[in-house]
């Protein structure tokens, strides 16, 4: 299969994360990911989109953009928000703020597990500011090659 992109834009609201999660699950399953890995991909997408909705959006109208790139050996998901325009606010996820959240994370914490999950489950994880003043989060999941299968 040649490299191909699917682009989505969802309103910045929790309600739209669930159908998006269902979509990526169906896609990953169609691409041959194992059931366990499909669940991982769905969880990672949920956590990234949740952060984009809660920390990277002024309101529900601005939207969160997703680019899903299917390649022969990988599935890549890029989630782009436009930023909360509250760069000084406590809830804006800068690298420094994320480091602080991770340092304070414990099993007893009620919040702050999202990026830890993303980093743990994705094969590649990158986060950077985008030109719109928001955040781009890119994750990649490797696809098992037929030669890797133990028959």
């Amino acid at each position: 299969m040649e490299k191909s992109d699917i682009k989505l834009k969802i309103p910045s609201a929790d309600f739209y994360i669930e159908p998006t999660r269902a979509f990526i699950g169906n896609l990953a399953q169609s691409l041959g990911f194992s059931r366990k890995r499909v669940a991982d991909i769905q969880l990672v997408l949920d956590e990234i989109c949740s952060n984009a909705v809660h920390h990277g959006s002024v309101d529900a109208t601005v939207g969160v953009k997703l680019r899903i790139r299917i390649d022969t050996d990988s599935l890549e998901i890029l989630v782009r928000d436009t930023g909360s325009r509250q760069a000084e606010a406590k809830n804006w996820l800068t690298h420094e703020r994320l480091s602080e959240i991770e340092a304070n994370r414990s099993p007893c914490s009620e919040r702050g597990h999202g990026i830890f999950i993303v980093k743990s489950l994705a094969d590649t994880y990158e986060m950077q500011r985008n030109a719109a003043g928001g955040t781009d989060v890119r994750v990649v999941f490797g696809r098992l090659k037929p030669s890797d299968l133990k028959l």
Partner: protein
Amino acid sequence: MDSTKLMKLREESGIKILEIKTDLSSYAASDLRKVLEDLLAEKVERVVVNLSQVSHINSTAVGALVGVAKRLRQSGGDLKICALADNLTRTFNLIGASSVVEIYESENSALAAF
């Protein structure tokens, strides 16, 4: 849509049983938090959350369960979880929440543990 309609409460031997019939991504996780907060407000002390019909849970929902379990213990009660699918168990283990909240294979074993 109100996902609290997919969260059924019943009672057995003085223990509230919350049966979740929806996957717990962000939207439903917020509703789960509200339902659990209502139980705290009603001074309920013992809760079992049955997740047998849940195939996905995110960190917000796990955090809500952990938070309410901690608060119930402060007042002598507890929240126990039961019937997790394998991927839910992995999420609890990854976060470390399985060391904070008691998890049981079945509803009966969770009820018996009180």
